[in-house]
């Protein structure tokens, strides 16, 4: 079945079984390999993307539900030449160890920072409660998210990457 999607601000048309998980479409059809397959069961958060401003697990989201919605993946947060504030902050804080969990962490953080650019540690823990990291770099991830909030406020951005990603 032909399905139209809006991913990182671009319109895409793909051909897929309607029940295919969004994660497979992103990785296999659109070559957006940022979102990772961890468990496929909605229990690890490595496949997290943002849909209409909210964090969603793409491994269990049937692609048919995504018609007309705006999807943001980690690739939508910036480019290598011009990293967005979240990406900048994760680099500055060297928050990745193996990095497998990081795109998911960043997307949960992105949804949080859109609502609240100055989150408390408790807010961050809460928002990232379903994101697992096997390497244990949680403290650096926390620091990076706090830093991203600062960068955004300094840049006068109302919320992370708004406009670029919808």
């Amino acid at each position, binding site marked *: 079945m032909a399905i139209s999607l809006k991913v990182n601000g671009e319109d895409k048309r793909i051909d897929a*079984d*309607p*029940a*295919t*998980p969004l994660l*497979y479409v992103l990785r296999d059809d659109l070559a957006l390999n940022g979102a990772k*397959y961890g*468990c*496929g*069961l*909605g*229990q690890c958060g490595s496949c997290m993307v943002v*849909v*209409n401003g*909210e*964090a*969603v*697990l793409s491994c*269990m*989201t*049937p692609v*048919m*539900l995504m018609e007309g919605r705006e999807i943001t993946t980690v690739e939508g947060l910036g480019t290598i030449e011009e990293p967005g504030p979240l990406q900048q902050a994760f680099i500055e804080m060297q928050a990745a160890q193996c990095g497998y969990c990081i795109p998911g962490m960043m997307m949960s953080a992105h949804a949080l920072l859109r609502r609240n650019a100055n989150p408390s540690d*408790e807010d961050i*823990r*809460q928002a990232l*409660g*379903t994101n697992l990291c096997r390497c244990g770099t949680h403290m650096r991830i926390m620091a990076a998210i706090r830093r991203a909030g600062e960068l955004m406020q300094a840049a006068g951005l109302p919320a992370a990457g708004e406009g670029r990603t919808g």
Partner: protein
Amino acid sequence: MRIIRAFSFLLTLLLVAAVAFLFVAWRSEIPVDEQAASAAHPPELVAKGAQLAAVGNCIACHTVPGKPAFSGGLAVPTPFGTIHSTNITPDPETGIGHWSEAAFERAMREGVDRDGNHLYPAFPYDHFTWVTPEDNKALYAFLMTRQPVKAETPDNSLTFPLEFRPLLAGWKLLFFRKGQLQPDPGQSAEWNRGRYLSEGLGHCGACHTPRNSLGAEDVERHFAGGEAEGWQAYAIDENSKAPVPWDAESLAFYLRNGWHELHGVSRGPMAEVTGNLSLLPDSDIAAISIYVASLMGEPSPERLQKAEQLRAQFGGGRIIQASDSQTPPAPAASDHPGAAIYQAACATCHESGRQQPFGGLNFALSTAVHAPNPQNVVNVTLFGLPPADGKASAVMPGFAAMLTDRQIADLLAYMREQFSDEAAWQDLEAQVANTRSGKYHVAVRPSDGIERAPHNVGAKEE
């Protein structure tokens, strides 16, 4: 002249009635006990009190999640307005630090505070009246040895004229019977112990028995199913909709562990209950289970036969198979609009065969899907089961951000049709919308205890 006489007669009558009522309503103050908070209590008594407080689930109402235990202030919504739980730490000014044991005992037995005010029956003294003096002594010792916390209880906001506490004497006249529970000599000691714990301190009926329009438990429909914090407290009498009927053994396992392989995990306010019960000895858990199972009665032969099938299909010893990225989702079982959503979003876990409590329960076993009111499955679909912090727990993602109200309604209608023989639920979409918006208030908290969980991760509050 006649009119004036009649009028003054009426006035006198009214006055006499008012005085009589105040006489019935009036309770004396029990004097301040300056030493109460500093008195010593034997450690065994305090330990026993800790267990009893766990049975009573005192912490759940008397603690705002994330704030110090027992310091009160939790807003309890009722059909009559909002009541705030009180501070029951031994702080002399804002807690019960000046309460003598007699004052504590009277509050439990009669629902009257130290000053002589009637308490609202949100404090379940209709159950606590049955607690024995020895158990009250232990509870008192436990509470008076907690860390005192200075925390003022916020004012209640109740519909007029319920702020006027003497009126509660009228409520008590109608619905409250003070007294001790007489053991039933025709039943075993265990059964009687179970009844004492469940009907008294455990106050199971406060949630599991429906309430009448004045907020009192409908004694005719004891354990026929009620409501708590936006969750359905299922019927635990012969109306139980559990596909595999409960028995004393499965109930005991569930209460002990917070899950059972043929029933799923406890969640909502029941998660607090099973969490608390971990302090209890096995013998008490067994007693409660024997008692409650006896009220559920013997299931019909058809139910038992169906249960046998389910047990064979889903009982222990199955192969655990996780999904992997190479397995394409199975095609939807029908062209019901909810079928494809179910297949893609739910079946990967709920039909994976992974065991409880970490795998998804097959919905053929789910009381939620068979229950008369879909509220619990609406809550879990929207808000999921938030993970506990730093320990293994059941976890399920919420689908609020992924699914629209209409899509959730389709999904649940499909599940109802597919997994149960019950009649379709009505007005699902509106119920989902009201739950999502917070118009219907639901408390959703992580499963690992009340003190840790400052957030209601359910619908937006206010």
